[in-house]
């Protein structure tokens, strides 16, 4: 036991002190922070306002057009004269409201789709108003036609509100993808570590002191601790960065929130105070209906158990090959279930409790990723327990199998290895 501890310590500290680990620990949160910060920055930075000269021959749009960051200037100059200037010109010929309307935008450069859309939307909005008023309707009457529908999902047994599918999907997807990434990245590290010991030829010195299984498990556990450390550093740094930035940008954030709420009130002016209060309580319900504890616990469990299971397989591959190039042929059967579980995520999302989702979350090779997708949709406890139990079983059997191949493989040099050889090693006496 003492020796396993020594191995774990070596594996852990040799990785923690690497430059790449330190760089990744700092870069990771910056990346995450960036994902959170960049949209705010983009939204708050000052876009230079563009000037559009409007030549309106229809008479419908006089001083009525408006769009974000675009200033419309109206002119009565002849269009031929205008075209000689190098400004952006919106030429609205006389309009027959019963037909498709052709309006021309002149300019030296391509304006970009966003710019064009903003102008188009503004034009369409005005034309719609004109048509509506010709029909005898105004915007207020039209808004009164719209009724807000709020579909609430409740559990038929408990009557409690179910988690909102949107929130559940996002949480599930992030969790599942994180497990997939971690298994891949750190499983590959286990494999490289094992192959390194083999090609370095230090392996025989080590296993004259410890059992091969101890060495394998020490490596796997040591790297698992590295992952946990990295996660902790990331979470801490990311929250620190996020908090710092939101404090720095607090005014802008408030402004952003205000403009957003202002826009939403504008778009639905019919909504009164009571409805707003109701909406707030719904948001609260969404968060309350979400199985937070279960999700967090499942993430930790499926990540650890999934990693341990795959790491043993990666270690087996590392022990079998003489160089990393040879590892490709053995990687395929390991990566197929992993990639497969990522591929079916979409289908699982469509029907989180369907038979595909159920079976893939029971099979140990796919359950870490698939079950993680399902958990936020509130999987029955019994199903979750069964899946966890099967995964532990899967972990024990793959580790046992991998350990048997490993103990022979690490001492074999220069022999051509295929699946048959692995199978032979598995049955070989020590």
């Amino acid at each position, binding site marked *: 036991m003492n*020796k396993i501890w*020594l*191995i774990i310590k*070596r594996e852990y500290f*040799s990785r923690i002190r690497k430059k790449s680990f330190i760089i990744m620990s700092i870069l990771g949160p910056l990346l995450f922070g960036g994902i959170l910060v960049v949209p705010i920055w983009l939204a708050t930075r000052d876009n230079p306002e563009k000037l559009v000269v409007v030549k309106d021959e229809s008479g419908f749009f006089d001083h009525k057009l408006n769009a974000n960051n675009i200033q419309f200037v109206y002119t009565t100059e002849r269009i031929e004269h205008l075209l000689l200037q190098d400004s952006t010109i919106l030429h609205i010929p006389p309009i027959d409201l019963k037909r498709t309307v052709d309006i021309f935008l002149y300019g030296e450069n391509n304006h970009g789709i966003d710019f064009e859309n903003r102008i188009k939307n503004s034009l369409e909005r005005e034309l719609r108003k004109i048509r509506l008023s010709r029909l005898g309707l105004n915007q207020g009457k039209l808004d009164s036609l719209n009724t807000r529908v709020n579909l609430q999902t409740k559990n038929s047994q408990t009557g409690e509100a179910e988690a909102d599918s949107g929130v559940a999907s996002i949480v599930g997807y992030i969790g599942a993808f994180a497990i997939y990434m971690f298994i891949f990245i750190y499983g590959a590290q286990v494999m490289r570590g094992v192959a*390194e*010991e083999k090609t*370095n*030829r*230090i392996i*025989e*010195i*080590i*296993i*004259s*002191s*410890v059992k091969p299984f101890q060495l394998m498990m020490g490596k796997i556990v040591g790297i698992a601790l590295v992952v946990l450390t990295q996660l902790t550093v990331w979470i801490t740094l990311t929250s620190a960065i996020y908090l710092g930035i939101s404090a720095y940008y607090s005014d802008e954030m408030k402004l952003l929130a205000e403009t957003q709420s202002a826009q939403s009130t504008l778009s639905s002016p019919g909504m009164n105070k009571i409805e707003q209060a109701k909406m707030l309580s719904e948001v609260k319900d969404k968060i309350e209906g979400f199985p937070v504890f279960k999700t967090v616990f499942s993430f930790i469990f499926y990540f650890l158990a999934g990693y341990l299971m795959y790491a043993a397989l990666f270690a087996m591959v590392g022990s079998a090959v003489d160089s990393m190039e040879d590892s490709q042929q053995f990687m395929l059967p390991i990566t197929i279930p992993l990639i497969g579980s990522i591929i079916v995520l979409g289908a699982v999302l469509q029907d989180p409790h369907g038979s595909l989702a159920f079976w893939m979350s029971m099979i140990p090779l796919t359950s870490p990723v698939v079950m993680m997708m399902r958990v936020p949709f509130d999987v029955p406890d019994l199903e979750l327990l069964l899946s966890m139990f099967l995964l532990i079983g899967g972990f024990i059997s793959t580790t046992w199998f991998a350990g048997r191949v490993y103990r022979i493989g690490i*001492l074999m*040099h220069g022999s051509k290895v295929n699946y048959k050889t692995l199978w*032979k090693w598995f049955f*070989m*006496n*020590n």
Partner: protein
Amino acid sequence: MNIVVAKNISKKFGDHQALDQVDLNIPQGAIFGLLGPNGAGKTTFIRIVNQIITNDEGEIYINDEKLASHHIRDIGYLPEERGLYKKMKVGEQLLYLARLKGVAKSEATKKINEWLTKFDLKEWKNKNIEDLSKGMQQKIQFIATIIHSPSLIILDEPFSGFDPINASLIKDEILKIRDQGSTIIFSTHRMESVEELCDHIALINRSKKILDGPKLAIKEQFRTNTFEVIHKGDISRLNPSDYDIGENIRFDGDTEKALIQIKNGNSPNHLLSDLIALTEVHGFTEKIPSINDIFIAKVKEENNHE
């Protein structure tokens, strides 16, 4: 007393019989040569003693105790396939390997400093292995083998890969360690390289032990009463019923070198006086068989029996 007693050891890898009922006794304090060609089963035997693999049949005893995991502490092993963690610091690496053998941290640190000083490597302690020259790495490798002061040191093909300076340095250290009471097992297919060092040998060929015992006794046993004579003259008139003239070749200038075997139990003096009557003798030495000669003779003999 024997530090290692192996009784009836057999080991099979699939269809390949790596060791076939091998008995070996390795005396305490000996330098024991485990000799044989490549693929004879030497490394398999060594790995069994190191508990890297297990034997199918037979028993191994270390100091009259059945081989058990605590014996790891008493054995220092330099494998034929050897290496170190390239990106680990010299001091940390030695400490790690010593700790894996079960040495306490403080004791290991003290020993590491002693050995690094002895081998002039003190200032390299905090350098990565990959920054060291090959010769230095070999020294570190040797320190790693003996850092826990084992009572049994097993060196598999120790001089392959070591440069001559390191090889002689290590030879000297091995002799010192032997004098302090440790037992050393040399395993090699290059028999001439260890002939002078070993006091006991065992020959293994094709998974079987074909010969073992004290080196001198074996050599005695394989003496053929053959003498190498450097002379100037004609020896063809030696009595063929008493002597067998092997070869007689031109040696240096006008001298010749002849191999003469005494057939009738005469003493070397008798041969010498017979020679003096015929020729001018410049040199006269007994031709003692080398371990290599003995091995070849023995293998031939075994093959003839089959």
